[in-house]
């Protein structure tokens, strides 16, 4: 070993430490740059939305160019719930089957299919929904058509995450369960899915967050409506649709622009709410799984 003291101020060791210091300063700076626009956006929207946001706004339907947000709000929530539910069931069940039961060829086919679907632009999915559900099946533009179309768009996210989560369970654990005499179905329900749950929940959250913001699949399958949906077959409004409609209006009628901001703000709130919710639920499961993947 060289004779230099541990405290060498020059030479390779010193250069390395200087480099570390600079990177330590640079990286948070980049992070700040990345997050600033988001913060700014929240502020920008909030500043224009909050001053005139009242309970009335939330409980009255829009009236063309002014009014409230009630209908679209309900519509968004309904679509969110329905499409998330459908895509979760399809995604999780399908992925569970692929991860555990399917033969290698079928598994390949399904996984490739999911990957392809993930790459399809949302507007194309919307077109497909229009022709298949609205026209061919005859469901017409409705809550159901919109939700199913959106669900189709969301399935790949949930499918891939669930597939990875279940396949990623340590082989030992699966063999231990099977070695005790569990059938593959019993393994899934008692070990596989419970262990994969945090990741699955996260993927559902991700899907929901994406779903909230996707307008294209809905435009042709649910059209737009000012009123809350009366049933699965009724037309419905949704917040993103409202923003799309209202934001372009000339600024003569200031109210619609404000409404648009308020709709945007509501959307943000919903997304943040979802995040918090899943975080809380995940944390409980994370604690129990600690040490499993060690």
């Amino acid at each position, binding site marked *: 070993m060289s004779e230099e003291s541990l405290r060498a101020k020059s030479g390779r060791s010193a250069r390395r430490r200087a480099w570390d210091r600079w990177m330590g300063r640079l990286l948070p700076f980049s992070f700040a740059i990345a997050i600033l626009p988001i913060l700014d956006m929240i502020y920008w929207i909030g500043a224009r939305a909050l001053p005139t946001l009242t309970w009335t706004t939330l409980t009255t339907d829009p009236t063309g160019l002014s009014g409230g947000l009630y209908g679209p709000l309900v519509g968004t929530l309904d679509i969110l719930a329905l499409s998330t539910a459908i895509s979760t069931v399809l995604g999780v069940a399908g992925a569970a089957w692929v991860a555990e039961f399917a033969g*290698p060829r079928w598994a390949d086919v399904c996984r490739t299919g999911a990957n392809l679907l993930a790459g399809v632009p949302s507007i194309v999915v919307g077109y497909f929904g229009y022709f298949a559900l609205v026209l061919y099946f005859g469901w017409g533009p409705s809550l159901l058509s919109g939700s199913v179309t959106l669900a189709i768009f969301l399935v790949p996210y949930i499918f891939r995450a669930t597939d990875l989560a279940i396949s990623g369970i*340590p082989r*030992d*654990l*699966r*063999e*231990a*369960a*099977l*070695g*005790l*005499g*569990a*059938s593959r179905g*019993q393994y899934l329900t*008692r*070990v596989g899915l*419970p*262990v994969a749950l945090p990741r699955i929940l996260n993927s559902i959250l991700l899907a929901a967050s994406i779903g909230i913001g996707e307008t294209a699949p809905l435009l042709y399958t649910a059209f737009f409506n000012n009123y809350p949906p009366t049933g699965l077959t009724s037309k419905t409004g949704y917040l993103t649709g409202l923003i799309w409609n209202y934001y372009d209006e000339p600024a003569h009628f200031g109210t619609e622009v404000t409404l648009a901001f308020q709709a945007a703000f509501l959307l943000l709130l919903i997304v943040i709410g979802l995040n918090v919710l899943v975080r809380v639920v995940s944390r409980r499961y994370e604690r*129990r*799984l*600690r*040490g*499993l993947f060690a």
Partner: protein
Amino acid sequence: MNPTLLEGAAAPKSTAVPDPVITVEDLGVTAGSQILLRGVNVRVPDRALSAVIGPSGCGKTTFLRCLNRMVELTPELRRTGSVRYRGEDIYAPDIDPARVRRRIGMVFQRSTVFPTSIFENVAFGLRLEPDATMDIGARVEASLRRAGLWSEIRDDLDRPALSLSGGQQQRLCIARALAVEPRVLLLDEPTSSLDPVGTRKVEEMLSALRNEIAIVLVSHNIAQAARISDRTLFFYEGRLIEEGPTPQLFESPRERLTEEYITGRFG
């Protein structure tokens, strides 16, 4: 003086297994063009501990996994030959592998506790085939006692299993396997990740257990095999080279390969 006695090692006294619980005939396993096991013929005695030893890659783990159909979980492996449990071919097409594995249980090298409570871990196997007449609590306690773990954890069975030490987790896995009351227990290097104290406790437990069921133990640790087993099987490059009563095999092995291995003159 009988000159033939001067050749090689002591002639074996009768070492046949009279009433084997598992009979393996001409077992072979291949992975593509690679041969993992060939021509293995074994009779596993009941109520005894049989140790399987051999250098890395000799096929001893593959052999073990053939005994309870775990080898099927690796799709690239092809198996020939037969394995009979009490005369019945365990690979017969009308036999459910899950049932085989309840009769012939397995414990793995690293602890594989489920992320639930201690109680739920041990009860896992019992809950697979619900039986209203079964007192699960009593069975769980009995298994924990057999595994020598009861006194250490009796105060709180609802604690997460992952909060136990490595040695305790391993013994929990054994208790879990014992809960379904298998007739044979297969263990794949169960103490290789444990400290000496944990190892000793597992070995003590196995020594007591061997009077009740048949145990097959794969071990890298020759001294462990010599310590606790009744019979020893030595594998090398996919073949069963020698097997016999442990004291005899370790004092005067018949095959030169066996002697080279157990005296540490390999590689």
